């Protein structure tokens, strides 16, 4: 969070893989030092599941929960990803198609490293375990589903969130779809040209109130509502009228029992693509007038299936700090929509935040997060 509030970002051409694109689109890669203490793996070989393990350790430490102390708890895992279950081992596949008959250990590892199962296996969790692949809304959906597991008594605790490892195939795919900005991305800005890809993991420890009381642990925040709605419009473009996103927000707000006036901030999806930002830029002034919003993808890049969970964590931190970072990259308003993200660090008052995600294929997800009453 500190770098967000220092207004710092450092997108750069990819270092963990090479491409022959004429334009070297900037990305936000996780520094190797981030996983070095845990995995002695070169950056091109680190897996989505391994990223999730690192985030899970951080989250459990923050929750003051030792996974060795789970004997009387049913702990589940629900992790979203876009490409973490996508067979992308180029070396294996090249050898296969060139009839070099490669060994299948890379495939065995790929199957073992399914993010949710790797986390569950690493920490010995025995509850339900699910990897959600809803594209870019996966992390937000995973948190919503995990909250439902807790509410229904299916689990006492869930490690929930998202994880994503960037690779050449994803990069090539987004470049082919002409969705990448050759400059640092500019969500909601009139001159925006697309997104910058990112990677990372964000996990939350969700826990039942009974379990928290039993552990005498602190409650950092509450998941109060979530919405998950398909808009059935187009495989890769959002519905221009934002009906799906509006409905997802409606569902989340209704479940939370809050009204629009209770929401102190919005962490927007804000990718920097032409089409996405128009939808959100039109919707928020109408549906949530006056509520400040920010797009943090200017700081992190678009980490696809992980990013909704990372942004949920940011939203909680912003509520705690009572301020939101500038929507970096936003300078010049787009006359096509009335919504304007905050362009400087902005003080917010209130206990509740909305975090939203939209995905390829038309899935929209929203979660309402809140701090407990002081």
């Amino acid at each position, binding site marked *: 969070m500190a770098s967000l509030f220092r207004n710092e970002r450092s997108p750069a051409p990819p270092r963990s893989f090479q*491409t022959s694109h004429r334009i070297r689109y900037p990305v936000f890669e996780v520094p190797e030092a981030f996983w070095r203490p845990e995995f002695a793996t070169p950056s091109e070989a680190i897996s989505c599941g391994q990223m999730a393990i690192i985030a899970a350790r951080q989250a459990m430490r923050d929750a003051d929960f030792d996974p060795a102390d789970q004997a009387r708890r049913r702990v589940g895992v629900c992790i979203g990803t876009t490409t973490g279950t996508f067979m992308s081992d180029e070396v294996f596949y090249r050898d296969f198609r060139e009839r070099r008959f490669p060994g299948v250990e890379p495939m065995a590892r790929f199957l073992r490293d399914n993010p949710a*199962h790797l986390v569950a296996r690493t920490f010995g969790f025995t509850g339900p375990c699910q990897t959600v692949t809803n594209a870019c809304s996966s992390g937000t959906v995973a948190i919503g*589903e995990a909250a439902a*597991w807790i509410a229904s008594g299916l689990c006492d605790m869930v490690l929930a969130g998202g994880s994503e490892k960037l690779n050449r195939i994803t990069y090539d795919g987004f470049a082919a779809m002409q969705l990448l900005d050759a400059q640092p991305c500019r969500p909601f800005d009139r001159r925006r040209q697309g997104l910058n890809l990112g990677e990372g993991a964000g996990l939350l420890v969700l826990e039942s109130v009974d379990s928290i009381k039993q552990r005498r642990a602190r409650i950092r925040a509450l998941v109060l509502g979530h919405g998950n709605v398909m808009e059935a419009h187009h495989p890769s473009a959002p519905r221009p009228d934002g009906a799906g996103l509006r409905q997802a927000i409606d569902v989340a707000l209704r479940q939370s029992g809050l009204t629009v006036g209770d929401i102190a901030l919005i962490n927007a999806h804000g990718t920097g693509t032409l089409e996405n930002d128009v939808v959100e830029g039109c919707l928020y002034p109408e549906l949530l007038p006056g509520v400040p919003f920010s797009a943090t993808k200017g700081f992190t890049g678009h980490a696809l299936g992980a990013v909704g969970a990372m942004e949920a964590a940011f939203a909680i931190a912003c509520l705690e700090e009572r301020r939101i970072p500038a929507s970096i990259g936003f300078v010049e308003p787009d006359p096509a929509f009335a919504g304007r993200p905050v362009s400087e660090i902005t003080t917010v008052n209130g206990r509740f935040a909305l975090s939203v995600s939209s995905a*390829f294929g038309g899935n929209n997800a929203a979660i309402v997060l809140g701090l407990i009453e002081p």
Partner: protein
Amino acid sequence: MSRRLAIRGVGVVGGFGTGREALLRALATGGGPNGTIDVETPEGLKTFPAYLADASGIRSFIDEQKLRRVDRFTQSALLGACLALADAGLLDRVDRTRMGLVLATGHGALGSATELLDSILDDGDAFASPLLFARAIHSAAASVVSILLGIRGPCLTVSQMAMLVPMAFSTARQWLLEGRADQVLVGGVDGYCKVLGYCRERFFGEGNRGPISPLAFDEQTAVAAEGSAFLLLTRDEGVPPRYGYLDKVAVGRVAGPTLGLPEDVLVLVGADGHRHCGSRYVELLPPTAQVAGFAPIYGSLPTGLAFDLVIAALACERGLLWLAPTAKDPVISSQPTVLREEVEIGNRPIYCLKLDKEGWFGWVRLSPVDSKFAVHPDA
């Protein structure tokens, strides 16, 4: 509110053919692989039996033009989904704003993923196919099903190898009981492609030849398969459901010496010829359990349990469980009782159970309309 769910429709496509009538025919005759696959190996070309799905029946439901950019994997998902909707009487002129979709897949659109890799390796990074990229993402099938069928409720794709089908049904159940959706289309889909055939051969060798003997737990007898299986669920409201009820789902890692199932439990085991999973059934099922396995009807694929659920639903409708192909499997001492004749269901629930080598378990319980469990689903 009742916590059981009504099963209103089923849709299947696989090596046995397309639709419930094709599956019923296979159940009556014993079924088996319907084709072969060729796999190049260092030892030369090998041919294995396979259960291959023909999704061309989707053209009866969706205009050809709309299918131009839809790959085989997604066409298979679409066909299973359309068949389930049609079976439930929900295909035409139905508002699907309150319908949810949960799709489980082990391998995803692996065929499109490898085509995408081909486009990059053949032509370079700048010539990656945007169409193949969009198809290859694991959520693509659910997106296309949603778009072409106008499904506007919640949606989730589960993508993993272990317990993916029980997780999908757990999610569907949650949504209906929470009121997030009024109907949920839930099922599984997996497809075959060459790289998968190669990996299977390297992993299992001649153990891909079948015939699948699910209860010969110490033998590797798997046979590659593809297809899709869907159920259309609603809350228990209105007319009694044709296929009975889905009244409980359990998923997790085995924590004790047994699964805690009733002694006389009737179980469709998800064993599909993979030796490394088989022994778990012997260890964890009560010795008095009555078991049958139907993988020889649909083959070995990660979403096999979805096919078992359709078979269990059909058995609830019929009141009889078919003589399973496993009736011919060799008897192994101390294993549960293998069903060797047709069984009247009566009011007994059917457990569809999946176990894996890492200790994960998942089961889904279906009950006929007059079952005591249908009244007390938490029993």
